[in-house]
C-alpha cells in the first residue's frame, strides 16, 4: 500500500468518525445520568436538515451550527419531558423520537434537496501539518473535527475530576439516594438529556454541512444507532469513545480502501460493513455480561419519580 493512500485512509477515517464521536459523546453523558435516549438518529437528521436550511437561508455556517444545536436540544427536551416528567417508557419514546425526526426532517427538507452550499474550510495546523504521512492525515481538518477532539478532553475532565461529574454519576447510579441527599435529580437529567440532544444535532449538522455537504433524506444512514452501540462498546468511558469512533470511521470507509486496492466487490455488499462491524463488536463486548453490568450506569433506562419517595 502506498503512503499516499495511507494518508488518505487516515484522513477519511477521522472525518467519518467525527459525527459518530460527537453523537456518542452526547449520548454517554445522557446515559451516565441514567437516561437511555434511542432518538439519536432522529435528532441527528433534524440537526442535519435544520443546519442545512439555516445555511441556505443565511449563508452563514455559524447559523447552521447554531440551528442544529438548538433543534437537537429542543427535540431532546420533548423526549426529556416524556421520560423524565411523565415517566414514559424510555425505549418507546426514543423510538418515537427517531420516527418523528425521520419523518419531520424529510418533510421540511423536501424543498432544499439538491441544493449545494459552501461547507467548512480546512484549517491546517501550522508546522504539524508538514509532518510526513500523519501531518496531512491528522492536522488538515475543519474546525468541527478539532472541536470534537477538544470536547473529548473537556468532557473526560468534567466527568472524572469535577463535582459535576460526581453528581452525574451519583444520579445515574441511584437517583433515589441522590434525591435523598439533596441533588436535584430531575434537573441533572434534563441537562444531561439536552446536552445529548445538542451533540446529536451537531453530529447531524456535520453530515449535511461538512461531510457531504448537502441534504438528502436519511442522510445519516443509521449513524445515530451506531453511535449508541459505540457507547456500549466504549464501556461508558470517554477515551474509549474517541478510539471507537475513529475505528468505526475506518470500518465505514473500508470499501474505499478495497476499491483503492483494486478489489472488485459490489458496493452494496461493502456498504453493509459498518453495520456488520457494529453487530460483531456488540457481541464481543456484551459477551462479558458481568463486566457490562459493572460498568453501565446502574439506573439506566429505569424511570425515577420523586413523587413516589414518600
Amino acid at each position, binding site marked *: 500500500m502506498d503512503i499516499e493512500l495511507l494518508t488518505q485512509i487516515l484522513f477519511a477515517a477521522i472525518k467519518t468518525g467525527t459525527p459518530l464521536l460527537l453523537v456518542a459523546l452526547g449520548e454517554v453523558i445522557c446515559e451516565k445520568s441514567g437516561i437511555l435516549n434511542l432518538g439519536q438518529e432522529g435528532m441527528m437528521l433534524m440537526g442535519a436538515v435544520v443546519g442545512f436550511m439555516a445555511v441556505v437561508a443565511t449563508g452563514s455556517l455559524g447559523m447552521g451550527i447554531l440551528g442544529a444545536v438548538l433543534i437537537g436540544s429542543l427535540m431532546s427536551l420533548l423526549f426529556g419531558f416524556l421520560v423524565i416528567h411523565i415517566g414514559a417508557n424510555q425505549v418507546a419514546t426514543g423510538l418515537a423520537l427517531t420516527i418523528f425526526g425521520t419523518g419531520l426532517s424529510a418533510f421540511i427538507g423536501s424543498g432544499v434537496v439538491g441544493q449545494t452550499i459552501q461547507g467548512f474550510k480546512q484549517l491546517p495546523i501550522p508546522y504539524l501539518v508538514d509532518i510526513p504521512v500523519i501531518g496531512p492525515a491528522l492536522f488538515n481538518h475543519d474546525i468541527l473535527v478539532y472541536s470534537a477532539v477538544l470536547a473529548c478532553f473537556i468532557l473526560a475532565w468534567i466527568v472524572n475530576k469535577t463535582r459535576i461529574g*460526581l453528581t452525574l454519576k451519583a444520579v445515574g447510579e*441511584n437517583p433515589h439516594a*441522590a434525591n435523598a441527599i*439533596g441533588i436535584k435529580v430531575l434537573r441533572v437529567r434534563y441537562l444531561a438529556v439536552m446536552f445529548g440532544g445538542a451533540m446529536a444535532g451537531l453530529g447531524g449538522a456535520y453530515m449535511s454541512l461538512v461531510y457531504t455537504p448537502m441534504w438528502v433524506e436519511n442522510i445519516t444512514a443509521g449513524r445515530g444507532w451506531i453511535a449508541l452501540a459505540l457507547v456500549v462498546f466504549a464501556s461508558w468511558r470517554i477515551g474509549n469513545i474517541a478510539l471507537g469512533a475513529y475505528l468505526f470511521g475506518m470500518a465505514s470507509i473500508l470499501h474505499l480502501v478495497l476499491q483503492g486496492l483494486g478489489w472488485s466487490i459490489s458496493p452494496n455488499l461493502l456498504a453493509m460493513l459498518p453495520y456488520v462491524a457494529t453487530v460483531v463488536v456488540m457481541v464481543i463486548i456484551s459477551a462479558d455480561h*458481568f463486566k457490562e453490568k*459493572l460498568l453501565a450506569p446502574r439506573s439506566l433506562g429505569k424511570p425515577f419519580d420523586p413523587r413516589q*419517595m*414518600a
Partner: protein
Amino acid sequence: MSATNTTTDNTPRLALANITKQYPGCLANDHISLSLEPGEIHALLGENGAGKSTLVKTIYGIVAPDKGTIFWNGRPVEIRSPAHARDLGIGMVFQHFSLFETLTVKQNIELCLTPAQLHEIGDLAKRIRELSDHYQLNVDPERYVHSLSIGERQRVEIMRCLVQSVSLLILDEPTSVLTPQEVEGLFRIMRTLSAEGCSILFISHKLNEVTEVCHHATILRGGKVIDTCVPSEETPNSIAKMMVGDLAEQDAGYRKAQGTKPVLVSKGLSLSAKQPFGTSLKNINFELKAGEILGIAGVAGNGQDELMAAISGEDGRPLANVLFLDGTEIGRANAGKRRRLGLTYVPEERLGRGAVPEMSLTENMLLTNHKPFVKHGWVNWQQAKSYTQGLIERFRVKCHGDHSEARSLSGGNLQKFIVGREIEQEPKVLMCSHPTWGVDVGAALAIHQALLELRDQGAAILLISEDIDELFLLADRMGALCDGHLSPIVATESTSIEQIGEWMAGTFIDIEAANP
C-alpha cells in the same frame, strides 16, 4: 447561626408540635408532638405502618407536613429539603442506605457537602481519618463503597453526618442489618455522640435495644402518639404492650419437632457471584429433613439471595452432583423442573417476584400452581378462578376478589396469599425467605401457624430470616450464613442468641479453615 445554637437550659434541640400528614387513604401522622433535649437519645417506637418513617422524613425535609410546626433550637422552621435539614445540623442514616457503590467513601461524603463546607474543611480525606479515629469508626476514605460490608457502610453514613457536625442524628432502624456484635459497636458510638451533646432520634422495633441505650421513648400506633416512657424504667414486655395494644395475640413458644429422612441435601455447594457486588457461595453443606424447619440466620447480603437462587434454580447455571431433592440430583434441572419435583418457594420480594403487580390474583395463582388448570397447553380460567376464590377464603386474604391486582393488596395480605399458594401445592420442600418481613402482627401469626402445620404434615421447610427472634421461635435446627459460608447446623434448643450472633459475624469460618 452561633447565637441560636447556644442552647439555654430548657430549650429543646428539636420540638414537634401537632405534625399531621395525610396520604390518599391513610392518615400517616396524626397530631404528633415530641421533643428532644441536647444529648438525648430518643427512641421512636412502633409497628410497621405506625407512621415512624413519615415522621422522620418530615424532620429531614423529604416530606412536607400538612399541618403542625417544627421547632429547631426553639425557633419555628420550615424544613424545605434534605439539604436544608443538613444546613440546620440534622443528619440522617437511612434504613436502606443512600450510598453510591461505584464511588469512593470520600466522594460519597463530598457529594453531601456544599462548596462552602468543603472549603472550610480543606483536606476532606484528612478530616475523615481524624473523625474515624475519634469515634473508632474505622472508615478508609479512599475505598470504594461496593467493597465495604453492610456494617462499614452504615459507619460511612454516620461519618457523612459527622463531617457536617450534626447536632441531631436520625437513625432509621440501624440495627436491623447488623450482627449483635456490630450493634454493640454502634451503641458505643451513639453514647459518645450523646456525651458530646448530639441528640439522636433512634427508630427501632427491637425493644431490648431501646431499653439498653435510650433515654426517652415515644410510641406510635396508627399515626398517633400512644404513649411516652423512660425505657430504663420499663421492660421490653411492657413496652411491647404499648406498641401493639393489649389485644394483640402474641406468638407463644411452639413445640420443636424432630425431622425424619433428609429430603433436600447440599453437598459442597460452591458458586461464584453472578451479580457485581454479589456474594459467592463457599462449600455449603446441609441436610434438610422431612418434618422439620431449618432456620438460617445472617445479616442481609451474606449469600442468602444467592443460596436461595441456587436451590430454586433461578440462578440458571448448572451444578453437578451437589444438590439432591428426595434423592434426585437437581443441580442441572431448571427452576420449572425443580418445582415439578416438589420444591416450592416463598421469595423475599412479594411484589415483582412472588407476584406480578399488575396481574389479578387468579393469574398470580396460576403463576406457580398451573398443573391442575392447564390441559394440553390450554388454561381453564373458570376452574382457576373458583380455586383462587377458595384460596382467598382459606387464608383470609383481604381483597376485593380474585380479580384484584396483586399490587392493590396490603403486604400482609399478599404474603398470606403467596404462602397459601405455595403451601397448597403440597410441597416436599418449602423454601421461605423473610416470610413475615413488614407484615402486621396478625398476619405474621397466621403465617407462622401455616408453616408449622405444613411441617407437621411432613414437609421440610428451609427458613431464611434476618429476624433472630423469629428463627428461634420457628426453627427446629439452625445455622448462620456469613460471606457465603454456612455455619454448622445445631438444634435450636441447644444453642443461644450469642452463639448464632458470633456465627453471623463469621467466627466459624476460621475454625473451618483450620480443620478442613
